């Protein structure tokens, strides 16, 4: 909290009388801590631009993001309530803190794992700075309470991501993926910002709460079409961030071409950022009961079903593990979209939304872990296909055990929290009477078991190739993988025990 004391600007709008005299800024302490971490990295880099002190840079990033994790956790536990800042441009509440916790945790894991991955490549400081800045943007997305803030913070997340994907400058795949990501991203941003302008045209405001108030009061019937197109376009911008079909085209190539820790970062944290924006915009600005004639729940149902189905089906035929994970990540976006698609009148709405949030939390750890394992394999240089992983368990049993936990949990088996989060989603979908989504979830999970278990089979059952050898056991990568595995594992009993508080996490928006 010492960081926050340096800020002396007068307090903005605050609903909380008891604010420790910090003017309300302590509410966004995690964002500020991440920003300061980025500044610290800049400082280090400007002092010694040519040095490649990877340990220092990685260490600062890890420490900075861990402090942010702890602060977020503390704020979550003490129940910060709902605080609005900057005339309502930002809001800090349970959901923003929940997602900030995901972002900062993933950032810490990725930074830790990058220690060996980055090794002695050039532009190390830039790498870490971009990661931290993207994370800062994500935390801002989680708190964004107006369409303008949302757009700016979305760009703050996206721009560093483009650069990070292209970080391996000598690798053709990396550079190409970065460029494609940038092009599709630009197109999507254009769609998003155009959608914002249409919504502004229809409602006359950018603040979520005011948009909602205008909609509740009722808008001119002739504007319904304008508003509807705007809403669907905003949905498109969000879908880009969550890598939902048809805005997903960047994802398989970006995830495959990017350095594996960055793939982990993008597919876990960045995706979650897309979801928190979606939850916030659609539930706060376009409440279902207020918005007539724009059935965005239906749009999300279509999106969820198509995304989970296409993602998993495409994953089933991949030859390389990383690309398989890339498609499976698209499939998981489809599962999480159930949280919005099942918000029908029949649904227990807070339950469904909380189920989606919990799935993203679990996913943040299990998916990050899986990509970090790929990073480990890339570090060892053993190849990219399923066959290259044959017999790996005989050389690296701990990492392979962790990977098996991730994969089975991703498939929805009870080796980790993934089982319960999928189960909650299923219950939510059934209660909402969106049986198509429930069936899609089950069928796709069954299919996904096929390609996840291919990896497990290769690692544990197949005979290793004659020349399989690995050099060293990189400490940082191992620590990150094992941590992710332990958290994934512990989330299963934790979710079972704390299912009551966990399933009310999303109730603040109703």
């Amino acid at each position, binding site marked *: 909290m010492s960081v926050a004391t340096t800020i002396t600007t007068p307090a903005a709008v605050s609903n909380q009388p008891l604010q420790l005299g910090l003017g309300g800024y302590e509410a966004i302490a995690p964002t500020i801590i991440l920003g300061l971490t980025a500044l610290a990295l800049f400082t280090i880099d400007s002092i010694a631009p040519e040095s490649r002190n990877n340990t220092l840079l990685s260490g600062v990033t890890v420490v900075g993001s861990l402090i942010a994790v702890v602060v977020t956790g503390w704020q979550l536990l003490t129940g910060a309530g709902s605080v609005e800042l900057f005339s309502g441009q930002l809001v800090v509440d349970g959901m923003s803190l929940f997602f900030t916790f995901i972002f900062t945790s993933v950032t810490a894991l990725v930074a830790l794992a990058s220690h060996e991955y980055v090794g002695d490549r050039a532009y190390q400081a830039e790498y870490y700075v971009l990661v931290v800045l993207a994370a800062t943007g994500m935390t801002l997305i989680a708190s964004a309470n107006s369409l303008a803030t949302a757009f700016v913070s979305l760009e703050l997340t996206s721009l560093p991501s483009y650069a990070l994907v292209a970080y391996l400058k000598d690798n053709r795949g990396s550079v190409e993926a970065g460029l494609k990501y940038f092009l599709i991203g630009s197109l*999507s941003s254009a769609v998003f910002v155009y959608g914002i302008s249409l919504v502004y045209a229809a409602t006359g405001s950018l603040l979520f709460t005011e948009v909602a108030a205008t909609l509740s009061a009722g808008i001119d019937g002739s504007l319904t079409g304008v508003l509807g197109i705007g809403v669907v376009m905003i949905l*498109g911008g969000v879908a880009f961030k969550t890598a939902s079909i048809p805005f997903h085209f960047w994802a398989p190539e970006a995830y495959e071409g990017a350095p594996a820790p960055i793939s982990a970062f993008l597919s876990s944290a960045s995706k979650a950022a897309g979801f928190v924006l979606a939850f916030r915009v659609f539930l706060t600005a376009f409440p279902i009961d207020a918005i007539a*004639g724009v059935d965005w729940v239906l749009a999300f149902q279509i999106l969820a079903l198509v995304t989970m189905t296409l993602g998993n089906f495409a994953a089933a035929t991949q030859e390389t593990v990383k690309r398989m994970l890339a498609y499976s990540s698209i499939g998981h976006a489809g599962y999480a979209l159930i949280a919005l698609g099942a918000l029908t009148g029949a649904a227990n709405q807070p339950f469904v939304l909380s189920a989606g949030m919990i799935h993203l939390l679990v996913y943040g750890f299990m998916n990050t872990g899986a990509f970090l394992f790929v990073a480990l394999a890339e570090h060892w240089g053993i190849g990219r296909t399923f066959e290259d992983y044959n017999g790996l368990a005989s050389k690296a049993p701990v990492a392979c055990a962790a990977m098996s936990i991730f994969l089975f949990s991703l498939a929805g088996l009870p080796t980790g929290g993934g089982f319960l989060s999928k189960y909650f989603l299923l219950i939510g979908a059934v209660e909402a009477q969106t049986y198509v989504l429930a069936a899609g979830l089950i069928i796709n999970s069954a299919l996904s078991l096929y390609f996840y278990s291919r990896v497990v089979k290769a690692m544990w059952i197949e005979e290793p190739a004659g020349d399989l050898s690995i050099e060293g056991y990189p400490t940082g990568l191992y620590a990150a993988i094992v941590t992710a595995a332990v958290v994934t594992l512990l989330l299963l009993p934790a979710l079972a025990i704390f299912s009551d508080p966990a399933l009310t996490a999303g109730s603040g928006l109703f």
Partner: protein
Amino acid sequence: MVGAFEFAPAIAALPFVSFLVALFVGRFMPKKGALAGITATGGSLLLSLWVYLAVLTSGDPHVEIVHTLIGVTDPFSLELGILIDQLSALMLLIVSLISFLVFVFSLGYMNDEGETGLPRYYAGLSLFSFSMLAFVMASNLFMAFMFFELVGLCSYLLIGFWFRADAPPSAAKKAFLVTRFGDYFFLIGVVGVLGTFGTAAFAGDGSFPVLAEQALAGEAAGINTFGFDPQTWFTILGLLVLGGVMGKSAQFPLHTWLPDAMEGPTPVSALIHAATMVAAGVYLVARMYGFYALSPTALAIIAFVGGFTALFAATMGVVKREIKQVLAYSTISQYGYMMLALGVGGYVAGVFHLTTHAMFKALLFLGAGAVIVAMHHNEDMWKMGGLKERLPVTYYTFLAGSLALAGIIPFAGFWSKDEVLFEALLRGMDNPIFLVAYAMGLIGVFFTGLYTFRMVFLTFHGEPRTTIAEDPHHFGWNMKFPMVVLGVLATVVGLINMTPVAELTGAHIEFLHIWFEHGGETLTVEHYGALLEQWAGYGAVDASTALVLGSGAVSLLLALAGAGAAHVLYNVPDPDEHTDKLGSIKTVLFNNYYQDEYQVWLAEGLTANVARGADTFDQGIIDGAVNGVSSVSLFLGDRARRLQTGVVTNYAALLTLGLVVLLVAVGILGGWFV
């Protein structure tokens, strides 16, 4: 005497402990687990006696829930409990006594004969006793089913004890499969009872027989009879449970496993036939008699099947060559009498016959075991003869058992069988179906006398027909002691319920009747009588003294006639095989009326073909569908994958197209274009 009931769970638990001991440390013990078993069943016997006395003094049944398996109360909870009343206290005493004696006998039959695998044998025997004791104590139908199945498993393990030979494993499998066939119906019955009443408890105000009676009287709400008339539905449930009973108690047509089960060690046969497996079926009918009493149809079926089985099995027993085969058919026949008794409303008569039969049949099997040991494991009666002088203890005890089995006054079997037939006659005077059942039972008495004494004469009388029979192997006290105990009991146990004598003298000496007149309100014989009268139309029939005596005299005369025929035909120095004179009937009898043949045809000709068809369906259609789904999935996956062309302009085009499609879809549904 509250103390006794607190120890009741130990009656079953002790043999379970000895099962574990025999299994894990039996091979290090001096008698390979026999001593543990003897100690445990001896302890059970003492505790059973104590519990019996406690019931005698207190008179009230003891119901206790020991462990709740599934504590959900809606729609029903599943629990393990204890029900000690007059019936189960008596049965506990019988089972633990027979088990104890069988363990002692096994010392001679198995240990002294140098058998291998003894820890396995004693472990199986202990588990058998445990299962049966727990079954007897079961407080609800669900728990009864569990231990009923465990009893079946133990019989499988023990019948197939000599698994290296060909016949025992096959016989074990047959016993398992045939009884399992009946148990399927039982299982459905258990589910049906739980689904109908929401409880499977035997005793108490909320028990299912009581609820069923209230439902018939139109007093109980919340009974789901699945759209049937309550009485029809209760008959269906009763008959489903009866499926299990007929399998275990070897009633026609599920009796075929029992003669084959003679492949097991003889002490095991004694246990199976007298006190455990076969008795379990009849005991179950008695246990839920309050339920069967509500359904005249189920009762008529029980009675008729029982009467038929009694006669049918007795005729087959007449032609068998092996001593244990004769006893096997005799068991089937005797359990037929018990079913007949229960079916005609003679609850006490049925339980009485169960009690006396346990004594004399255990005795006969142990005697046969002794003979087999003496004959160096040759079981063919035509190779014996003249053993009377050489094995006097065996002879006299075996004779006592045979007299009891044949039903000669004053041995135990006379009193119980007489009462069974008397009850059947009483009911038969009302209803011709029961009269037919009675007639079959009565004719069965003649054949019983015939095959029993044919067995006695062929084995013990005449001249020795082989060298082994001239110089039989001798055995020790551990085989003689159980035979003597049972010999005494087989002689006197009938005295507990001498109905004809009571009728003559007017003395109140029908102790078993008096015993069952006490106890829980819904478990007494008076209550059953009232139920029978109200729901099954079994009105009170006035039985004159002459009828009582006449019935007894007729059955005694028939038994004597059978024994006399055996005396004429076989009690000669060198008897002929008179069965040859029967011609083709002999072939039919030897082949057991071709029961096995048609059941094998059912299994191989019909079931196997259906199974093959199902397999084809599974392989072709189900697996084909599964394989089809996976190839279609992979094909579609390949298509989905090809969307990713790698050309970024395609992506942009598809993205825009997708957005437009979404816009149009939502727009049309939202009515923007109107």
